[in-house]
């Protein structure tokens, strides 16, 4: 109640000067809201929504007056604030009779608290003695290291490096040399192709039902079917059917000659 009464008396003088200095300094709407709360010495657990909303909208107004582009994130928060404000204005008895009335601000408060926590966690991380900044390892490699080439060690690979390598390759070559960019479906088919070929390495014949036995979903049957078509197109397998509506079998089109390469 006290916060409500003092809302209108909060000092908003100099608002424009402060914010024209700080323009673009905020990392997002939550950052701006936290700043407003701290600046006005408000209680984060009991935010006077009307005050905060007005100051927040003023900030956006300043941005617009200066013809700065206002990021969608800021606008989204503005509408969230307005929504909370309107719910707060609803008379108590018109609110739904619940076991416990939920403060319309609860979610926003939790987000602000979480955000504040991670913002600080980031600063705590940054304050550590960082490798290459405060702390250093030996930068001189042993001469042995330079001479020796090893082949036995485990590989160091990152998924991002893989996809990034492919992406940078694509930027180097003309687009038309590509069929459609690999989508999830393509992977399923590639997966399925791999499966079938693995099975065909173990046995000479594979039954269609063997492939879909574990989870007989529509999607899997379609993908399996497409994989088989692709394998036929590549002339990697041959298909047989045991009579009409009979079992479908396939065999490798060419017997493997594993020793051969290139």
């Amino acid at each position, binding site marked *: 109640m006290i916060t409500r009464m003092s809302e209108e008396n909060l000092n908003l003088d100099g608002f424009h000067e402060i914010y024209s200095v700080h323009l673009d300094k905020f990392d997002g709407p939550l950052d701006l809201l936290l700043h407003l709360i701290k600046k006005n010495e408000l209680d984060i657990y009991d935010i006077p929504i009307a005050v905060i909303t007005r100051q927040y909208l003023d900030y956006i107004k300043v941005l617009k007056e200066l013809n700065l582009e206002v990021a969608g994130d800021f606008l989204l928060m503005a509408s969230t604030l307005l929504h909370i404000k309107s719910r707060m204005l609803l008379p108590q008895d018109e609110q739904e009779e619940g076991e416990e009335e939920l403060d319309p601000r609860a979610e926003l408060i939790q987000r602000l608290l979480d955000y504040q926590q991670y*913002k600080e966690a980031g600063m705590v991380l940054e304050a550590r003695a960082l490798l290459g900044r405060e702390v250093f390892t030996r930068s001189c490699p042993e001469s042995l290291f330079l001479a020796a080439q090893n082949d036995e060690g485990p590989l160091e690979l990152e998924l991002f490096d893989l996809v990034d390598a492919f992406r940078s390759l694509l930027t180097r070559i003309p687009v038309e040399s590509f069929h459609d960019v690999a989508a999830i479906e393509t992977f399923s088919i590639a997966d399925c192709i791999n499966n079938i070929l693995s099975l065909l390495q173990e046995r000479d014949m594979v039954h269609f039902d063997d492939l879909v036995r574990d989870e007989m979903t529509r999607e899997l049957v379609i993908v399996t079917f497409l994989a088989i078509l692709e394998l036929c197109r590549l002339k990697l397998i041959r298909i047989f059917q045991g009579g009409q509506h009979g079992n479908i079998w396939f065999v490798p089109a060419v017997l493997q000659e594993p020793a051969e390469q290139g």
Partner: protein
Amino acid sequence: MPLAAIIESIVFAADAPLSLDRICEMLHEFEREDIKEAVAELGRYHEERSGGFQLVEVAGGWQFRTNPMYQQYVTRHIKTRSIKFSPSALETLAIVAYRQPVTRTEVEYLRGVDCGGVLKTLLEKKLVRILGKKDIPGRPLIYGTSKEFLEIFGLKDLKGLPTLKEIQALDETPHYEQQDDLPLGD
């Protein structure tokens, strides 16, 4: 103490932190328990000595690193990597570190802003890695921190991160402390 000296030479020569497992693998003629003890003793020895460098446990392994106390002298000769984190990169990194495995949507909800660009930069800097895809509709990518993250921030493992409670305690102001019960509604 030959075992300790052997371990010291390997760790010293290595270009990345060496885990106990890795050391044991290499020194198969020694007992794991002996190696473990020798490593711990070496760490203590270098700490007590407080020379120009120390044997520290980072990213699940052991590595010699300069004592941060002498940063200003070391950097007179060594070119420092320009490590500068923007506030948004730090926030995003903290969220990924504490909430992993985490999706982009989750990060964006917590930060309230689009995080695609920041996540990409962190991926490129190898501080964050793609862990795979989440088993929910849409199969979004999930992110976590990398070994490099632990190495750069000098953390033994993810448990070495300061707990969020500790972090909150740093910032606790009397203003918030007075708040006994959460005022719900008017």
